[in-house]
């Protein structure tokens, strides 16, 4: 009788997850969606605790369970509240790794208990447990190591004994067959352990190989493709939870896990499309880095005073932020510039947001929102592109590929990528540390046009100079 009520609680929680995910996909309902997700999780946890309490024997490990919940909640909450807005993608990657590890550990713990307390016989139960445990270990441990590496790639490096070591990007072509071979060997090990379920050597081998797989899967992937990879790993951690659900025969784990797995995969594909990339290419073709164009041209840099003179009396300025703005953290200086121009010359200021500007989708929105830029001034690429022809000045801050006219030619790595038409503006100011090529490794013609003024330097320093120059006008 009581079992039914537990299933009912899990059903309610699954329904809440479905509604939550649905609502998270629309701007207006997204905050609600997150709350539905929280409620779903709350219902699942409470249902489980009631279930355990009513089981024969009740809850024996109150202190352990209470401590676990409390420690995890406090650490998670502090990490989430303390993290800087720019550190968000890393944080999501880290949490994701923890989720995958949790699923894999539950699977390991169950398998362990099962080996120690029962004498497994060949049969349906053994087969299901061994296969599910093996797959859960494969996906879960892979998610952990892959996510950790992704986190350090997003950070750009790791500090060891005070020395900064850059996270490498390395992926020769022969690595792909190695990945396939390792994957097949895990499947073979799972098959072997069906015959010999108590042999823990197989188990350790599966865990070890899965950890290596996670690392070599992420290692060849360049920094700007990281959001796609994190999204894929997120999908995998859902699948790991679903496999774990098969071991402990728990419906909510299966439902929630496969929901996240499937929707995460769709989201990954959507993100790839926004970057005009194929998921397969992201995963198995090393991109950028190797075939970068050599620079053969030069351009004389301008200074802040010159730019300020050009900006004098401008009616409309469009700001095009990119990764460089995130790195130099100059969103507050950008906002100050916008305010100065609006006060002095009554200039109309807008921001052109490319869908993949920065290190994660929505990166620019979050940074500019942090600096209190009004939401209505952030315009998505498709809507603002027609406005460049009527604007006096486009200011590109640390963006390159997203406004490279080479994308229109239909050749090279950028071919077909939608770009911001900054080159249509009357004057283009580009704040950038050097003329060097962007992530895609393609030289940018826009830099060399006569109407383009280059401000070579760090975004924050340059914007501060520019603001001072505007004040002195």
């Amino acid at each position: 009788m009581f079992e039914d009520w537990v299933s009912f609680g899990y059903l309610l929680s699954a329904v809440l997850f479905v509604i939550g995910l649905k609502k998270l996909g629309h701007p207006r309902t997204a905050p609600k969606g997150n709350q539905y997700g929280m409620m779903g999780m709350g219902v699942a946890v409470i249902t489980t605790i009631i279930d355990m309490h009513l089981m024969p024997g009740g809850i024996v490990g109150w202190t352990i369970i209470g401590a676990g919940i409390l420690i995890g909640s406090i650490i998670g909450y502090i990490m989430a509240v303390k993290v800087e807005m720019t550190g968000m993608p890393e944080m999501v990657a880290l949490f994701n790794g923890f989720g995958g590890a949790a699923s894999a550990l539950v699977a390991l713990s169950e398998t362990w208990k099962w080996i120690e307390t029962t004498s497994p016989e060949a049969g349906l139960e053994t087969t299901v447990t061994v296969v599910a445990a093996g797959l859960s270990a494969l996906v879960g441990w892979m998610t952990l190591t892959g996510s950790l590496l992704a986190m350090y790639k997003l950070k750009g490096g790791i500090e060891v004994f005070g020395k900064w070591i850059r996270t490498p990007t390395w992926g020769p072509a022969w690595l792909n067959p190695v990945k396939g071979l390792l994957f097949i060997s895990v499947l073979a090990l799972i098959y072997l352990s069906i015959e010999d379920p108590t042999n823990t050597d197989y188990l350790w081998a599966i865990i070890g190989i899965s950890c290596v797989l996670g690392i070599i899967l992420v290692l060849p992937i360049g920094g700007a493709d990281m959001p796609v990879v994190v999204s894929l790993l997120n999908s995998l951690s859902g699948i790991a939870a679903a496999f774990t659900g098969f071991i402990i025969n728990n419906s909510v784990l299966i439902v929630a896990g496969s929901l996240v797995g499937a929707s995460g995969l769709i989201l990954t594909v959507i993100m790839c499309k926004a970057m005009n990339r194929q998921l397969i290419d992201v995963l198995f073709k090393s991109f950028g880095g190797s075939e970068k164009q050599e620079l053969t041209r030069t351009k004389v840099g301008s200074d802040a005073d010159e730019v300020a003179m050009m900006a004098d009396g401008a009616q409309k300025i469009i700001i095009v932020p990119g990764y460089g703005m995130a790195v130099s953290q100059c969103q507050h200086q950008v906002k100050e510039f916008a305010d100065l121009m609006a006060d002095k010359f009554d200039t109309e200021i807008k921001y052109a947001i490319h869908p993949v500007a920065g290190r994660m989708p929505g990166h620019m929105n979050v940074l500019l929102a942090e600096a209190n830029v009004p939401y209505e001034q952030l315009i998505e690429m498709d809507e603002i592109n027609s406005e460049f022809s009527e604007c006096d000045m486009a200011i590109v801050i640390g963006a390159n590929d997203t406004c490279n006219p080479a994308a229109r030619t239909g050749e090279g790595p950028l071919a077909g990528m939608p770009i911001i038409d900054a080159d249509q503006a009357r004057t283009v100011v580009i704040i950038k540390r050097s003329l060097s090529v962007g992530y895609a490794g393609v030289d940018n013609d826009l830099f060399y046009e006569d109407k383009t003024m280059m401000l070579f330097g760090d975004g924050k320093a340059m914007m501060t100079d520019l603001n001072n120059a505007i004040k002195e006008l």
Partner: protein
Amino acid sequence: MTPEMLIGSITLFVLSIFLGVELITKVPAMLHTPLMSGANAISGISVVGALLGANVAYDGGQTVVSGILAFVALVLAMINVVGGFAVTNRMLNMIAGKKRGA
């Protein structure tokens, strides 16, 4: 485990995958990261398995190792769940909150 239970579980698994595919259609770029982060928090559902596993920690001593593993899983899953939802909330407040206020 009976064959019926296994078939039931596989049914749930397959249907949920189809539901998950249909659930996400067009998502504006601005919401990609919050959606990813929210879904990630939901994948911390293995907290349920960790709770059930941690409960047996004192169960005789034979299963101490599995109890410890479950405890570690519980802590990691709770970090994933609480941190994931909190970070999603912060992102959404930054993006959507400003929209309403302005």
